[in-house]
């Protein structure tokens, strides 16, 4: 018998039936309160800000200009984007407006040295946002590489207000859940942080030191 078979055999031999531990049915009834729909945006923004993220409330007309101003404030000279249409438009816009920011879209395998050592900021697009925890859902894939939201010191995530949901439970029960699951699905709720030294918060532990959320309130 293999280890696998022996482990499973031991688990299967466990007595069942004489246990008073009849589990309460796992039901879909909500037991933890979620914010009302009217409060979703406020809750999301508040939670993100509590977690040291910056939220840009903007719209489809002006978000690129608003973001560019932020990038300039952060002295970003090299911005890395995923391979989706939104990134293409952003790249075009930045190229038309600024000579100081080199915007690259990832189209081939990412060179580790480049992303670790040369890129200042990464631009990602979320597929949903969760109000109760202030979380952005990122489905990685060919359009949305995993490292873009992880390695550069500044992480920018775009999300649309129509993509807001109450919380993770609501998301998990909704049709938003991709099937099949992407190889890597992420909830991001702030910049990287640690409190491992004497419970003192420090940002930028291993991942981004800063997170800017671009919220399109008319989309």
């Amino acid at each position, binding site marked *: 018998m293999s280890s696998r078979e022996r482990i499973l055999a031991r688990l299967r031999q466990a007595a069942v039936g*004489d*246990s*008073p*531990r009849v589990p309460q049915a796992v039901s879909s009834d909500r037991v933890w309160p979620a914010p009302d729909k009217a409060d979703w945006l406020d809750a999301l923004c508040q939670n993100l800000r509590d977690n040291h993220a910056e939220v840009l409330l903007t719209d489809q007309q002006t978000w690129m200009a608003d973001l560019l101003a932020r990038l300039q404030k952060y002295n970003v000279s090299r911005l890395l984007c995923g391979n989706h249409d939104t990134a293409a438009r952003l790249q075009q816009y930045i190229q038309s407006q600024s000579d100081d920011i080199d915007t690259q879209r990832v189209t081939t395998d990412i060179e580790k040295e480049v992303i670790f050592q040369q890129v200042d900021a990464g631009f990602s697009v979320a597929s949903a946002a969760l109000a109760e925890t202030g979380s952005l859902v990122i489905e990685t894939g060919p359009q949305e590489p995993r490292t873009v939201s992880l390695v550069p010191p500044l992480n920018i995530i775009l999300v649309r207000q129509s993509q807001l949901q109450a919380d993770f439970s609501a998301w998990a029960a909704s049709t938003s859940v991709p099937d099949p699951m992407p190889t890597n699905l992420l909830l991001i709720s702030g910049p990287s942080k640690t409190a491992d030294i004497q419970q003192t918060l420090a940002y930028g532990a291993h991942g981004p030191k800063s997170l800017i959320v671009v919220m399109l309130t008319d989309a």
Partner: protein
Amino acid sequence: MTAQSEPPHAARRAYPSVPRQVYLLGTCLVDSFYPQAGMDAIRLLEAQGIEVVFPQAQTCCGQPAWNSGYDEEARSVARQQLHAFAADIPVVVMMSSCAGMVHKEYPLLFRGQPEEAQAIALAQRTYEFSEFLVDVIGVETLMGTATDAGSAALTVALHTSCSARRSMGVAEQHRTLVENLPAVTLVEPERVTECCGFGGTFAVKQADISAAMAADKAAAVAATGCDLLTSADCGCLMNISGTLSKQGKEIPAQHLASLLYQRLYATEGES
């Protein structure tokens, strides 16, 4: 058989109307070290028109052995209490930890044993002292029977034992009783929910850790500036006041029953 998790929070037990007669389970610590508290409890209950039955055959609930993992020994002693408290009347227990033993642990201790049904029945009619006063008699009724409500001002630090708080869930009852005493100011020590370090044989088997916990609790009690320390668990009282007194800080300590009786009724000359 699997260890039970705590019951859902909302599941409060149902209480009977005030009975004519109750058993008093004095507990072995009250018996030897705080017998006056037992007498005070009896008088307090009698003042409510309840007849108190104190079985001379009672000894100890069996908790020390049970907590130490000596199940057979615990069971043999607990069996004696099943006999001593056999009649179908409520049992009022002087200490929260012993109440928890009978109310919560007896059904586990006797699971699969011939006395299982008897143990469950006893558990169901067993009440912690303050629980009985608040939930069966009622605070207003109790205070209404007071004959000596005009006592001098007193600041009382309440130590609610872990069994009162977590096993029996009667922390609120303890507070209510003390708060409602005339001219009494209730103070709670810092980190009020933390264990005082008694824990029965724990105090002996892990004496260093227990002493460290007791020292912190004693300091927190002393810092309240109270006139008196009270609790419904004599193990905690002995632990905290013994530590205070070793440090030369003498703060009088009383079982809750004695505090209640003395603040609600004249006690001069009575024994």
